[in-house]
């Protein structure tokens, strides 16, 4: 579905990603793990078009999307839930969701999707009139996921959805991702929460210093000592 073909991304002179290739298959959850600064967020931003590639290509269902502007990529259904949520803090929950459905396609279905989002996250319906900035971390993450869902994603990319959340909330978020996957939504999760991420994923990649150092079945990776080493340096 999404094929990343040997991309290199640079910040000025410095390479943040070197020669990274990833395949995301339809209907699966792919996990991307790796320690801080290993280039996970850069990879997502490269897919979303926020970051220009130095070399390599990204294909979406066979079509090249690298080089398109972010809004064009979003229009194809490649939607990112950014790290740190990046909600519109002085807009209400409802407005945040509305902006999620800004594109003409999703806009037509906005009412229906919103209903679905509220079903998934009943808490949001209670807080629909509240400013996003005043919500708790967990609720904010729900809004962020909800906003992404409003764009009717074909591929949902979550960047550190567990960041700064209590374990129970993290669990809830991951459960919903799995649930959505059950309904056929392809996902790419980037997380430091290694165990939980791997346990819901099908496929996994381990990123270290901007390079893929491991790829494989998520369950196999769970057991691999190399993962622990990559994180703790032991």
């Amino acid at each position, binding site marked *: 579905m999404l094929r990343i073909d040997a991309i290199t991304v640079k910040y000025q002179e410095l390479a943040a990603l070197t020669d990274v290739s990833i395949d995301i298959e339809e209907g699966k959850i792919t996990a991307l793990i790796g320690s801080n600064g290993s280039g996970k967020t850069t990879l997502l931003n490269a897919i979303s078009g926020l970051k220009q590639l130095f070399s390599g290509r990204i294909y979406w269902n066979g079509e090249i999307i690298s080089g398109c502007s972010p809004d064009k990529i979003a229009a194809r259904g490649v939607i990112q839930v950014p790290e740190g949520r990046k909600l519109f803090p002085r*807009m209400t929950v409802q407005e945040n969701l509305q902006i999620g459905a800004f594109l003409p396609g999703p806009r037509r279905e906005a009412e229906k999707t919103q209903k679905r989002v509220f079903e998934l996250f009943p808490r949001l319906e209670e807080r629909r009139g509240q400013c996003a900035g005043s919500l708790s971390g967990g609720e904010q993450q729900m809004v962020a996921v909800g906003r992404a869902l409003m764009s009717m994603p074909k591929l949902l990319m979550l960047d550190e959805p567990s960041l700064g959340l209590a374990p129970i909330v993290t669990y809830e978020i991951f459960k919903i991702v799995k649930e959505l996957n059950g309904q056929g939504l392809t996902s790419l999760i980037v997380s430091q929460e290694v165990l939980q991420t791997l346990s819901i994923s099908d496929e996994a990649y381990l990123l270290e210093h901007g390079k893929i150092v491991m790829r494989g079945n998520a369950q196999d990776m769970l057991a691999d000592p190399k993962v622990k080493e990559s994180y703790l340096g032991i």
Partner: protein
Amino acid sequence: MNLTLTLQSLISGIMMGAVYALLGIGFSLTWGVMRVINVSHATFGLLSAFVSYSLFKTFGIDPIASLVLTLPAMFGLGCIIYWLLINPITRAKAVIVSSMILTFGIAIILENLILLMWGADPRLLTTSYTNKVYVIGPLYFQYPRLLGFVMALVGVSAVQFFLKRTLTGKAVRAAWQQPEASQLCGINLKKISMITFGVAIACSGAGGVGMAMLYSFEPHSHNLWLIYLFLVVIVGGVGNILGAAAGGMIIGIITGLSMAFMPYQWVNLLTFGLLMVILVIRPQGLFQSEV
């Protein structure tokens, strides 16, 4: 203190302030949203004032009615200016400073175009209702001022409505609060910035007509108007529409009252001094900066 004098100055202050606010909201918008300090904002207002003046003099179209023509034209002009000139510098390191100098260049060009087309003499927009007055008890309401006040109310509410109720307006706010995330939602930043700039220039157009109904204007008037813009925006908080409205009122009231109770020649000094004090004490404005 004299009650009638106080009330009368208060009224005229509020009405003046409302028009400053109308002129100021667009300025606030571009500064807040795009980090572009549009020094030529007042000059665009002046341009629209001259256009309405000519429409009135040659075709007899009432300045208020001619807004139907001028506002879309100003909007379009704003979009073009953004596309051609502002967009190239938005990626520069010091956008704010570059934008000030760039738009200063635009202001020079516009001012001299106005000079070429209309000449240098001061103009007064004298319509059939310019000298009309409403009298309520001991208080007088001058018709053009009332009209300016109403225009400002409508203008500020319209912009507020645009930002808070329409999807495009919400997208503007979103792009402002989280440029990156808004792109991820499919918002084209360039297009949104262009619309914002267009709306801002259209506002300045309305504001310019409002100013023209209150004051005389000439090709150099925009310099003084610009000072009022800074006042309004800095008092009201950058990017805050209602703040700008309140800022305009506050400045109008202060000017009005000080004109009544202070030697007239110190009034401007007080206004500028006040701005300095506010800047030193609360550079973020008296009100929260808000979208």
